[in-house]
């Protein structure tokens, strides 16, 4: 293809990326080093104060809590997704249907899937209603608006992202390998530990990345299921641009979050032979 035609094909996307990814990044970076304006916005002088505030125990705690919530959700996703992916690889002709059933929630609205859990967990929700009616409890259990609900929501929303790369890695394994392991004297769990698991490692790493990154920056799920009580990084950023009207600090938190995400991505893609996406 001539260079001219290729450039023409790339032009709309490139222009869009420059305008909506490149320029905003520069604007955000410029905000992060200035002072807050009285009614939002920014004003001189240039300062490092926003970055120093990140080390404040209050905000450091929020960032650490976000990391912890993301790590916990990722670990739970891994533990749940592994048997699921393994079961799908062994499902024979049902494989495609089972895979589609994992993908299906991915195609339905995140907002609605999160609301579904509010519907189940709230004081007047289905679980409390059933428990009350069964006489097992007298007062509704406080299931919603807490840490557990947030992690549950994160796991629920991101489970498919873990299942798919795991499935791809497990599906690629030559079926005779497990027979060979048994043939050489390994029991089922020994073969799992020494063959299946190490060979699934690229899938595990990809899955961890695909779950951890969106969990780290999640806003909607912590906001709805945490009820504003469990502040994570996403909520912190949002607050700075709305209620607190501290744009420079919000920009600094955003850049810190982005730096964490890109560092993770870089670490993983550096050691991969095949593309992650």
């Amino acid at each position, binding site marked *: 293809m001539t260079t001219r035609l290729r450039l023409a*094909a790339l032009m709309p996307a490139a222009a869009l990326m420059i305008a909506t990814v490149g320029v905003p*990044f520069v604007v955000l970076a410029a905000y992060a080093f200035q002072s807050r304006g009285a009614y939002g916005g920014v004003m001189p002088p240039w300062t490092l104060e926003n970055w120093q505030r990140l080390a404040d125990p209050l905000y450091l705690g929020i960032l650490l809590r976000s990391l912890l919530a993301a790590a916990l959700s990722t670990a739970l996703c891994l533990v749940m997704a592994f048997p699921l992916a393994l*079961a799908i690889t062994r499902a024979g002709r049902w494989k495609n249907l089972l895979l589609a*059933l994992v993908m299906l*929630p991915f195609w*339905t609205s995140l*907002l609605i899937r999160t609301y579904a859990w509010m519907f189940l967990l709230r004081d007047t929700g289905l679980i409390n209603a059933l428990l009350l009616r069964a006489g097992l409890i007298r007062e509704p259990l406080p299931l919603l608006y807490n840490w557990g609900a947030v992690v549950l929501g994160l796991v629920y929303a991101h489970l498919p992202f873990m299942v798919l790369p795991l499935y791809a890695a497990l599906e690629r394994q030559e079926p005779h390998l497990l027979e060979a392991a048994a043939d050489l004297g390994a029991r089922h769990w020994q073969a799992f530990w020494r063959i299946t698991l190490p060979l699934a490692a690229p899938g595990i790493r990809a899955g961890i990345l695909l779950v951890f990154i969106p969990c780290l920056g999640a806003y*909607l799920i912590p906001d709805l299921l945490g009820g504003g009580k469990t502040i994570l990084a996403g909520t912190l950023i949002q607050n700075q641009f709305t209620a607190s009207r501290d744009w420079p600090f919000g920009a600094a938190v955003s850049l810190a979050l982005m730096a964490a995400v*890109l560092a993770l991505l870089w670490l993983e893609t550096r050691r991969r032979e095949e593309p992650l996406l």
Partner: protein
Amino acid sequence: MSRALSLSAVALYAFLHAPLLVLALFSFNEGRLTVWEGFSLHWYAEAWRDARLVEAAANSLWIAAAATLLATAAGTLCAYGLWKRESRLLMAALTASLVTPEIVTGISLLALFQWLFRYAGLQLGLHTVILAHVSFCLAFVVLVVLARLRTMDAALEEAAMDLGAREWEAFVRVTLPNLLPAVLSAALLAFTISFDDYVITSLVAGVDTETLPMVLYAMARRGGSPVVNAISTVIVVLLGAGILLAEGLRKKS
């Protein structure tokens, strides 16, 4: 071993699908509470009578349609250009747009628009929402179309040109028809993502524009109502039907 595996798989499928099924079930409940009081469609009727909801839904459809069209066109061309020759910079920008947390995308676009408005005197509204949506849908489209292109034989286009087609003719008459199923599923993905978005939209919509997720979000934050169940069910069913349709088209071609 395999029995334990099957059991855990069944449990996990229940975990994945039961919440939405229960949600849909109670949209047909007569009463407001989470106790079954008989079948009724009146929550659907109530949603339909709510002018704010209907207007928000119309906005959402309009935004999603426009964003899908633009993102699919730009994304398909972009994937084609990248297939011909890699561009590390553009790929990096697309990857960055894909992994950026929504809230960060939202506030960075908001910062951009505010900064622009100071100099150009523009207002937040439908147009800023559409631009934002095209932006975050683009990477998904490129990804889907590029994946399909990578499985395609480069000799097809060469054969077309060997038989006298110009480059753009080879693209239009040979590459594009082979690419159409992927373009279609990319468009559907873009539509879903756009139609569903709350976080970015709420930040760049300004005060006068409201989309369906924004209304649903506000209702959910107030504790929800069976009307939310009803709207959710409609959305899930329509999106599901769209996916089945697209999948059917893809299989047929």
